[in-house]
């Protein structure tokens, strides 16, 4: 990552009101997963983001709903990712680890950027969702995103083959 981000700037980017500009974006199959990307802009119009939604085509617990910010340098930075529970995770700086079966939320932090890890390395276990629909809903709530008709754990966003 070429740009540096402070925790204050990350918090500002996550908290600023945003809206989805293509709420009718359709899911498409790609490799062994389904994907759907939504364009997002800040209400002020100054910042651009993308919500990326991925659901594995066979494993229901393998998914992510994330928000990436497009810096004016052309670089994209993942600010938050609401992940499935298919894999273990380890927070290297804190030394904490959790095993498969734990849904978790990755968040960008200044300390991991400074240590050379992926910005969104840090993750915490959540009980806020157990499926992709709930993960997308949680992402929209936590990142102050409007314009998407989401609901916690309701209608299936992806139809598995």
């Amino acid at each position, binding site marked *: 990552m070429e740009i540096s981000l402070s925790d204050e700037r990350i918090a500002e980017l996550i908290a600023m009101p945003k809206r989805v500009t293509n709420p009718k974006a359709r899911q498409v199959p790609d490799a062994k997963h389904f994907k759907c990307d939504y364009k997002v802009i800040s209400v002020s119009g100054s910042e651009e983001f993308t919500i990326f939604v991925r659901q594995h085509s066979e494993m229901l617990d393998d998914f992510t709903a994330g928000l990436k910010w497009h810096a004016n340098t052309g670089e994209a930075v993942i600010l938050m990712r609401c*992940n499935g529970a298919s894999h273990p995770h380890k927070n290297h700086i804190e030394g904490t680890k959790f095993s498969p079966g734990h849904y978790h939320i990755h968040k960008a932090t200044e300390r991991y950027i400074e240590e050379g890890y992926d910005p969104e390395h840090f993750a915490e276990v959540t009980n806020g969702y157990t499926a992709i629909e709930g993960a997308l809903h949680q992402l929209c709530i936590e990142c102050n995103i409007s314009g998407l008709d989401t609901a916690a754990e309701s209608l299936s966003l992806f139809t598995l083959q």
Partner: protein
Amino acid sequence: MNIDELKTAVCRSLCADVQVIERNDGYFFVDTPFEFGDGDHYSLFLKFLPTGGVRITDRGTTFMRMSYLNDLGKFREGSRGRLLEQVVATADLQEDRGEFFMDVSGEELGSSLVRFGQALTHIHDLTFLNKNRVVTTFYEDLREQVQGIVGSDVAENYIVPGLPMAEAYPVDLFVPGERSPVYIFGVPDQPKARLATIIIQYLRLHLSADPKNRFKSLVVFQDQANIPHKDRSRLINAASMMVDTLEARDDMRFKLEEALH
């Protein structure tokens, strides 16, 4: 500690770092010390094969992860596609629609798991090649392609004679022509798109007034879709000719030959 005790300690430590967890879909998840840069462990799965032996597979999760920040199409074509093919061939992997796997006997399982993990690392590392090796490969491929069309009469990093501050405005490839020379610019990324725009506009400003200094400029994108719209628009307006990827060999040949003869 003697060598036997050392062996026992190493084996015990390695085993402690590996866990096999049964899933409810016929696969076993293998937790290993292999990790991505975001702290998530590699998704390695085992499945018993009906013919005997075991399949080690990522079930397509590596590509899914790479899709968060990348269009997967770029790993299937051009320089990255060739590098991916090399990784797959070297590690003796098989691929099915983005799922990487290898079928092995039970005795080979340990060493194969390590080899499989290494291969996934190499595949995932292709995402870091945007600004380094792939760019280098792109310029090499561009030069070879142009030489394949016009012969060896190609100058790299050409400094235009008589141009004020010429060393600050180099041309990637210079091809002399019967009517006028062609200045070729490779554009792998946004910064280079902006630089190429500046150089072409500078050359036009200082050279176009004199008929004997006239030239044509050809821009070759590594992947036009990766260049932001405004940067692409400025470059399109500045350059005489464009080719949208190195894969468009016939179009590059047509444009070069038309400009040179």
